[in-house]
Each structure stands twice: as C-alpha cells, then as structure tokens.
C-alpha cells in the first residue's frame, strides 16, 4: 500500500466520507508471520531468541491460516522473518496467494521484511510480479555503521538490491521502505541524514525508524539505547528532517506498545506526540504528522488483540515472546492443533 496522498506537497488528504468510526483497539488484524527461522546474517541487534529451525509450515498450511485470518477480518500480512529470502519459493508463493486475495478485497495489504542480501535478478523479477503492497529492507546506517552491525559487505549487497528493484519496478518507489533500527551505534542525526541522502540518490522515498530494544540475547548490549536518547533523536528528526525529505518522501517514526510504552509516554510528555493532533487512518493506525514525518501512536495493548505473530512452525503469540528461546512455551497456542479464532485473545 502506498504512502502519500494525491496532489502536491502539503495539506492533509482527508476522505472523511470513507472513514467511519471504527474500533481502533481490535481491528483489523495484522498478521506477521515467520516463513522460516534461519538467517544468513548474525546481526548484533536481532531480538529473535527462538532457535528451532525445523517443523516449518507448508505453503498449503499457511494458505489455510491466511484464510482463517481473513475470515477474522485480517487485512495486513507481513512476512517478517526470520529471513524470507532463505525460503524464497515459499515466500513468493505466499505473496502470490495474497495477491490473489487482494484482487478479491483491495484493502488487503501484504509485504515482506528482508535484509535484501540474497536477491538475484530472477528473484527480483518474481518479487515485482508478486506485486507486494510494501517491501521493507533493513539498512542501519551508512556503510560503515551498517556493516559493523550486520557484517562486512552487507551494505553493498542490500544497496545493489535496492537499486535493481527501483530500476526494474518503478512503482516500488512508493512502497519500498528502508527499515532503520535506531540503536546506540547509529544514534547520530547527522549520520541518519547522510544515510537518507545516500538512499535518496538511489530513488528511495520511504524511511522507517524503529527503536532498538535490548533483548535477552544481550549480544547487542553495547548498542543499546535509552528511551531518553530515542526521544531526543525523535525530537530532532521532527524538527530537522522535513528539510531533508523530498516532497513525496515519507519518514515514519515507530513505537511499540508492549516493549516500549514508557518511551511512548515520554514522547507524549515531551510534546513530540501531541495527543490533540492525533489522526487515524483507514486501517485504524493512529499517528501524528509533521510535514512528511509521521509518528505512530498506540493507545492500548495490541498483542493477540490486533497483532498476531506466527512462528514458522505455527505457534501464535506476540513479538516480545519471540525474544525467548522457549517461545512455544510462551505461545498462546499452535495452529497445527487449533484454529486461529480459538487462540487469539478477543
């Protein structure tokens, strides 16, 4: 789904006739699924503690689960891991399945989150044909910083994929998001500006910042960041970043309720999120907007109420539970044994 709005820069495109009052607590469901539990990188800030790589669901099992989710009103399906390109055949089959569902219901959005280090020309061609609503590619800074976190040489691999995708799929400029994890190692607004500039030169228009949460793995202890530091950076980005962004660019600053509510409260306290200026979109996403900068706001718990995380082997829980090795023990249930409707909270 494309960000942005029709017309020129400035102004809010409010189509109020289509925006009835909706339940912003419960729906529509957002499904994030792991198609596998392996990755070709060992990023220092990876939060996934669950290690079991076996027992992955088949394409048919996933399709059945997606159909269940659609019956429950799910509209968003993100293939978020562990690294979708390492199960590419399955990933692209599922993208194409959702593409077909989207033809039946245009509100469905489906996408992929990837480190983009394993794309080749054939895969890019298949990706473009699958026509995902969005594609998140993880870049954590300029080359030096990115590679210090993700491994030497990976910035160039990801950048090469970004260039090819934007070259071959011109419509992707509105749906390719750079997913930047804000942590101690890259918490420098001037370097963030430099990174954005380098990517803009390649045609990137969409940027998303997510604050790092130190996980149980503790591999990234030295790259941790406090909520005060995140708030300071968000404040500076809110003040300065509009000057760097093109008229059709977007910068999304994310927060998470379950793991970062104190951060969100601080952003409100400091006036970076102004409650009196909150907006709500067609998918019940709440946010504030300052020019081309959007800051998400989550007023209530979401896990298993709106957000459903499904592991590669069918366990259902929330993102935070995946920090832990014993994810199945923490999970609400297994889709190999029960229906989704029986497992989710409400």
């Amino acid at each position, binding site marked *: 789904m494309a960000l942005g709005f029709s017309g020129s820069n400035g102004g809010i495109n409010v189509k109020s006739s289509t925006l009835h009052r909706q339940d912003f607590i419960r729906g529509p469901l957002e499904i994030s699924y792991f198609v596998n539990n392996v990755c070709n990188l060992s990023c220092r800030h990876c939060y996934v503690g669950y290690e079991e790589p076996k027992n992955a669901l088949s394409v048919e099992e996933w399709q059945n689960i997606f159909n269940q989710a659609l019956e429950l009103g799910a509209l968003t399906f993100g293939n978020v891991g562990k690294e979708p390109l390492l199960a590419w055949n399955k990933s692209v089959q599922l993208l194409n399945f959702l593409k077909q569902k989207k033809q039946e219901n245009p509100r469905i959005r489906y996408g992929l989150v990837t480190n983009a280090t394993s794309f080749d020309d054939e895969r890019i061609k298949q990706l473009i044909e699958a026509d995902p609503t*969005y594609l998140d590619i993880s870049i954590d800074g300029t080359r030096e910083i990115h590679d210090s976190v993700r491994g030497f040489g990976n910035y160039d691999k990801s950048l090469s994929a970004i260039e090819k995708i934007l070259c071959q799929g011109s419509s992707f400029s509105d749906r390719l998001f750079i997913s930047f994890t804000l942590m101690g190692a890259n918490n420098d607004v001037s370097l963030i500006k430099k990174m954005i500039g380098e990517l803009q030169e390649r045609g990137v228009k969409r940027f998303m910042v997510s604050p790092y949460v130190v996980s149980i793995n503790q591999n990234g202890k030295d790259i941790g960041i406090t909520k005060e530091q995140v708030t300071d950076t968000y404040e500076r980005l809110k003040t300065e970043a509009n000057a760097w962004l093109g008229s059709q660019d977007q910068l999304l600053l994310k927060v998470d309720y379950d793991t970062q509510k104190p951060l969100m409260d601080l952003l409100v306290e400091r006036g970076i999120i102004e409650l009196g200026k909150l907006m709500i979109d067609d998918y019940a996403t709440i946010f504030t907007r300052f020019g081309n900068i959007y800051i998400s706001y989550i007023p209530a718990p979401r896990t298993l109420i709106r957000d459903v995380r499904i592991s590669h082997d069918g366990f259902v829980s929330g993102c935070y539970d995946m920090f832990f090795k014993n994810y199945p023990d923490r999970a609400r249930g297994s889709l190999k044994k029960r229906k989704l409707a029986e497992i989710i909270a409400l």
Partner: protein
Amino acid sequence: MAIGISGSNGGIADAYRRFELADIAAGLQKYRTLKDIAPQEVKPLYQKLITALEDLDRNLKRESGLAEKIED
C-alpha cells in the same frame, strides 16, 4: 527485522481523519459493555483496554484544556 507490528505495513494509508474524543468514548462504551458480559477469564484483558482508554481520554482532555472545563 522490525519489532512490534509487522514492519511498515506499507506506512500510513491514503485516507485518514482526526482522531477524536468521540473515538475514545465509543471504545470505552464498547469495551465496558463487553467486559460486563465476558467470561471471567477474559475480564482482566478488557479491563486493561478500558484503563488504557481512560488514561488516553484523561490525557487528551487535559491537553486540549477540556479537563479543567469539566472539573468546573
């Protein structure tokens, strides 16, 4: 990979409007009703949602100056 929700989801949709106190009021009405009729084991979750909405309602009114008017 992105923490929390499934990555960007594609960002903010094209169509959006102001989020209002009436949205919160509608949510409170709904979840208070649902809590009343919910099985015992689910009531705490509904209460969590209700508490979050009440906090938001209070904070939004305070920020917009409405809280003072109401107290008057």
